[in-house]
């Protein structure tokens, strides 16, 4: 690809990098770093994995969920968006969609090389869209990849937004499960994800971004939905999530599940199934 790769000694610790990524940018024009960041020899912390599994509802297995690898790459997202070459900051960026593929089962004991870069800066009606693209390798083999699309509200990018996406028509669904999300869930997920974004834990911060109460992290909802059907997920799979409407904490939501030709379709909805919060598709990796 010809992209410069900055190899870090270890995953960036909580602290400076996070702080920088959280400081709102004054820039109006969206700029993204052209380089990739990479860390080799990442040891998965089994205690944290066990904790993550509990918080998200997964069974603790010898192989890890795809969403866990996403969580492991998160410090690299932060490093990229905290870089001085980035005017897009993590704070205020809205996670719009996530796609990830587990190419082969990954053991909890495997050491991973993680690499993330930003690409595809493009205009959107409400700001700028960027893709954070991650890859996990074991011994040179890509075992997982994922892309998170963020919307940087209010930022400018030259050009015209693509015409409204062909978002599928939402038909109200009958939920087959009800999740009661406690107020402390935001803190529980912060502990296991190490994502310090205050919007998930602080009412004041949530208000500052226009939410009445803290909102649960979209990747928790994603993980919880996969966990709900974990026995039916193939050994290698692709999961696509669209984050449509934040879930306020505490709160109660529903889960609708419907099999389709490709695999499973999951919808995390309002309690009555009238409106979707998160839509997910899971199918075997090709």
């Amino acid at each position: 690809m010809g992209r410069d790769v900055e190899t870090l000694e270890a995953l960036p610790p909580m602290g400076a990098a996070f702080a920088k990524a959280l400081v709102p940018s004054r820039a109006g024009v969206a700029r993204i770093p052209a380089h990739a960041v990479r860390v080799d020899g990442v040891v998965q912390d089994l205690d944290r994995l066990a904790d993550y599994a509990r918080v998200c509802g997964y069974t603790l297995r010898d192989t890890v969920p795809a969403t866990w690898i996403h969580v492991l790459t998160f410090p690299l997202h932060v490093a990229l968006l905290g870089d001085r070459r980035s005017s897009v900051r993590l704070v205020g960026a809205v996670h719009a969609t996530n796609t990830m593929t587990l190419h082969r089962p990954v053991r909890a004991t495997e050491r991973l090389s993680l690499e993330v870069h930003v690409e595809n800066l493009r205009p959107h009606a409400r700001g700028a869209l960027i893709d954070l693209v991650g890859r996990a390798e074991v011994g040179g083999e890509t075992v997982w990849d994922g892309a998170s699309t963020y919307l940087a509200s209010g930022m400018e990018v030259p050009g015209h937004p693509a015409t409204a996406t062909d978002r599928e028509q939402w038909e109200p669904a009958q939920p087959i499960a009800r999740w009661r999300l406690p107020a402390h869930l935001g803190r529980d997920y912060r502990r296991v994800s190490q994502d310090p974004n205050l919007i998930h834990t602080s009412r004041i911060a949530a208000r500052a971004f226009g939410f009445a109460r803290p909102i649960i992290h979209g990747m928790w909802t994603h993980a919880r939905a996969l966990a709900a059907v974990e026995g039916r997920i193939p050994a290698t799979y692709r999961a696509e999530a669209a984050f449509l409407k934040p879930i306020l904490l505490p709160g109660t939501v529903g889960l609708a599940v419907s099999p389709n030709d490709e695999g499973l379709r999951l919808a995390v909805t309002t309690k009555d199934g009238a409106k979707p919060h998160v839509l997910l598709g899971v199918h075997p990796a090709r």
Partner: protein
Amino acid sequence: MSHTVVVAGGNRIPFAKAGGPYARASNHDMLTAAIDGLVARAGLAGERIGEVAGGAVLKHPGDFNLTREAVLSSALAPETPACDLQQACATGLETTMYLANKIALGQLTSGIAAGVDSTSDAPISVSDPLRRILLKASRARSAQERIAAFAKLRPAHLAPQAPSVAEPRTGLSMGEHQALTTLRWDIDRAAQDELAAASHHRLAAAWDRGFFDDLVTPYLGVTRDAVLRPDTSVERLAALRPAFGGPDGTMTAGNSTPLSDGAAAVLLASEEWAAEHHLTPWAKVVDAEVAAVDHPGGADLLLAPVGATGRLLARQGLTVDDIDLFEIHEAFASTVLATLKAWQDPEYCASLGLDGPIGACPPEKLNVTGSSLAAGHPFAATGARIVPTLAKLLHERGPGTRGLISVCAAGGQGVVAILEAV
């Protein structure tokens, strides 16, 4: 009983000491891992199995449907039914017999028998007075009633209650009971240490020859039984201080099983089902018997299997000479040694109503790939560890060879079963 029931496979995760590598894993996690490993090896992903029966001795109240929940987390078809059974340390053998009987009757053609226990993630409960106060408060219809309920709370009520290993009727722990048996049957220290050392050496040798390659699936980075000490010796074991029976006791941490974490599963099927699924039947389930003794009345707590063994052999028209391999669960080395002595004791056997002594077990036929002292003993999993191990050993020796399993259990109970290679 018209259908032949075969053991067509087995799987467990390596066992580990309490507080070790599985400290963060729950019974649900480990049971799912054991089942999924079996499903993967036998090619049963997405398959609807007749029934899965599992259990745990130390169980959280939220795990009332432990086995069914594990099935739903596993790769088995979600339409696979399950039930929880529990018979202390004999659980894994009792779940095996429960399913074997159903298959024999034609109610099922396939089943997975399992057991799991975590002493690391043991349930902690609240004291009885606190529980009563909480229940009363939850039924209260007014704030006043609720306050009145909580007003009865005393600091002493707040102490958490760990599960006890003591027998409810005697207040003695299993080790203390076994210490009485050890004295009564005059089992010396050297014999216990020799048996313990042999268990470790035989289990290590079985691992080394790859015997467990199709019986165990690694879990959370553990690839071999973490309790196993291949380099232990009679000399090293002799240096340990007594753990039970007072300063002159002969039972130590080395010749008693440690508290363990682990899970095991057995695939049972009719011969036809096994053939349709291209699975090699290792052995058929011949018969089994469960028994109990009057331990509050002074009987040896862990010798209930002796009576069951005598009756079972008699019912099948067999003697110990017809048995090629013996698997006697090593709760303690002295349990095995006392059991063997009891088998040969005419008076004891007569007191059980048997026609004479059961007979002697040649040491070379006993626990040939080690047992619980070396592997560990996650209570409910042990029976489901032994069944496939013995079935595979018999299969290696050829059709017609027979094996006997004897598992003692808390409450003065025990289960004995006979397998025969097919």
